[in-house]
């Protein structure tokens, strides 16, 4: 079976003042129907721009240099004019952003915003699209939809706004939902509610999910597949549980060692040495080598690419085998 979504060699150039750099550099992945992929990375890794490029929603400073997006066997051109209104919606992709307050229209009622796509994309009647919006409000767990239909975004709490944004994303009946840190701005008790909602929607509608986050603590709950991103490239991919249990890229291992876990307070968190490199002056070879404990001279000169490191798993590291041995030897923390 062909994958529902295929992304190939996505390259996004960002102009900043007089310089330009590749914020996304050759990202490729595919997603089966009904599957969920989490893309994890720190700020500036290019994870959000990857989603925006797929949606054809790059900011003015960004430009798509190359890349193919294939949905259900149909090739799209995200760089084309009119991509947003035409192809993308026909092929049924929607996006949910982190900051619902700035993503929603402040001068339109939430009901109006949810009913827009049913009316103009799916071509339903005014009455039917209103009914549809009510139903969606109910589905995303907003009580009393009749009353909330006429509310403006500023009248709602953060969690409810995020539910509204999910309802808008669902209103065009998408097959793929792209989520850009949808729970990062929310409190943890609300975060669990939204994650549970996404899981329920996946189960009910067979939705496919791409979930971008900086939080390794939630990826296991939302997605079976994980991709780790660093300086615009994917450095490791594989089944989430396997990657978390035995990372095969030193950056993934570093992120896991640096993260605190509420259940193991006495485990010493270890920061990754150095800091994220300036995207305009990325290190040669493997961009992680100046911060990497396993780095050798070769790492600075060889362009590393994702290569298979086991069934279902890929890593972009020359010393991936060594990392596997290190993990096998001492007991893991």
């Amino acid at each position, binding site marked *: 079976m062909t994958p529902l979504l295929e992304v190939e060699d996505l390259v996004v150039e960002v102009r900043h003042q007089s310089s330009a750099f590749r914020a996304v550099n050759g990202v490729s992945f595919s997603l089966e129907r009904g599957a969920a992929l989490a893309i994890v990375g*720190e*700020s500036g890794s290019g994870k959000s721009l990857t989603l925006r490029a797929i949606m054809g929603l790059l900011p003015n400073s960004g430009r798509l240099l190359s890349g193919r997006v294939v949905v259900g066997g149909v090739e799209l051109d995200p760089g084309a004019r009119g991509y947003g209104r035409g192809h993308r919606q026909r092929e049924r992709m929607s996006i949910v952003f982190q900051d619902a307050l700035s993503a929603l229209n402040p001068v339109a009622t939430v009901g109006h915003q949810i009913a827009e796509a049913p009316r103009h994309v799916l071509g339903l009647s005014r009455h039917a699209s209103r009914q549809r919006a009510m139903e969606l409000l109910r589905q995303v767990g907003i009580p009393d939809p009749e009353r909330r239909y006429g509310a403006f975004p500023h009248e709602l*709490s*953060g*969690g*409810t706004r995020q539910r509204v944004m999910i309802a808008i994303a669902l209103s065009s009946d998408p097959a793929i939902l792209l989520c850009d840190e949808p729970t990062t701005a929310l*409190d*943890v*008790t*609300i*975060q*669990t*509610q939204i*994650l*549970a909602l996404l*899981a329920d929607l996946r189960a009910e509608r067979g939705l496919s999910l791409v979930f971008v986050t*900086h*939080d*390794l*603590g*939630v990826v*296991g*709950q*939302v997605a079976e597949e994980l991709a780790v991103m660093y300086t615009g490239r994917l450095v490791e991919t594989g089944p*989430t*549980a396997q990657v*978390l*249990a035995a990372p095969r890229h030193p950056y993934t291992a*570093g*992120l*896991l060692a*640096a*993260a*605190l*876990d*509420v*259940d*193991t*307070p*006495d485990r010493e*968190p*270890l*920061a*990754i040495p150095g*800091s*994220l490199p300036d995207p305009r002056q990325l290190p040669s070879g493997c961009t992680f080598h100046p911060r990497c404990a396993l780095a050798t001279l070769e790492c600075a000169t060889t362009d590393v690419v994702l290569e298979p490191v086991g069934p279902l798993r890929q890593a972009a590291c020359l010393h991936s085998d060594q990392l596997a041995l290190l993990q096998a030897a001492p007991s893991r923390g």
Partner: protein
Amino acid sequence: MARAEVNRAHAAADTPGPDRAPTPALLEVEDLSVFFAVEHGRLLRAVDEVSFSVGRGEVLGLVGESGCGKTTVAKCIVGQITPTTGTLLFEGRKLGSQRRAEDRRAIQMVFQDPYSSLNPRMSVRQVLRELLRVHHLVPSSGIERRCRELMDLVGLPADALDGLPSQFSGGQRQRIAIARALAVEPQVIIADEPVSALDVSVQATILRLFEDLNSRLGLTIVFISHNLAVVRRLSGRVAVMYLGRIVEEGDRESVFSDPRHPYTRALLGAAPRLHQTELARPSVKGEPPSPIDIPPGCPFHPRCPRAEAVCSADRPVLESVQTGAWHLAACHFRHEAALNAQGAMPLPEPEETSESAEEAP
């Protein structure tokens, strides 16, 4: 952990009864309330009768979600907000809104966002020199040496003194903000979400710095965060806030391995976990109500899986759960340990069972 042991030793020497704070208090907050007048003559109760104390050399973690009042408490302590009612005592002296320079110096704050809390046009040296001069802390001949000492203390090279804030990464800026707080030789640091804006890979180094300041300089720290993992790592004692009130307070391990308030259980159940691959089903319904319209009785009862009729009628006060350790909870059912029935959160397995066993009476 050495620090936790020291805190416990303190506690043991002072024989903590269930009604006494475990360490001699350096900073005491008594019945602190902050109300703001909002439209239609109504009151927003940001902080409602909060009391706690912090012992010298102790790290107190203040946990809660956005809007629970934790930052308002912090601002009262440093004197940025004048409380509506209540008293603040520092070394037994009352702190008013008009403070002596000495008292202002003694309590310093570190903010969440190192990008907006540093003057972008002043070099690090200028920032520190100004502070040292204004407060007459060192003779002018010694200022440069003190600046270098401060850089060393927060783990930055001496040539960082010449830089402007924009030339540093987020983690380095937070170090500079900490150096600025330390310049006036404070006794207490109030750190308000100091690592929340930082990337995971640098959070650990800033946490280590706080640990060092506490263990090496004996600095007292009030550490405010929504992140339970960070608070559990750093604090000797923890207070959990909900809707302007402390709902649970106690020694770190009492609260984390035997939480007695359903809200604390919900927070723990919802905390992100690295190796969790099952979805954590939410145990509390809905969202926190508005602090303008606080529910009667226990403010948590509309969302609480354990609530009974009594909860909407009587407001529970913060009382000892009587496990022998220093542990208070404001819940009618605080004597019930978490059973995985009655809708209580399935508890995570704490790893250090041996340690908590030792602590048990």
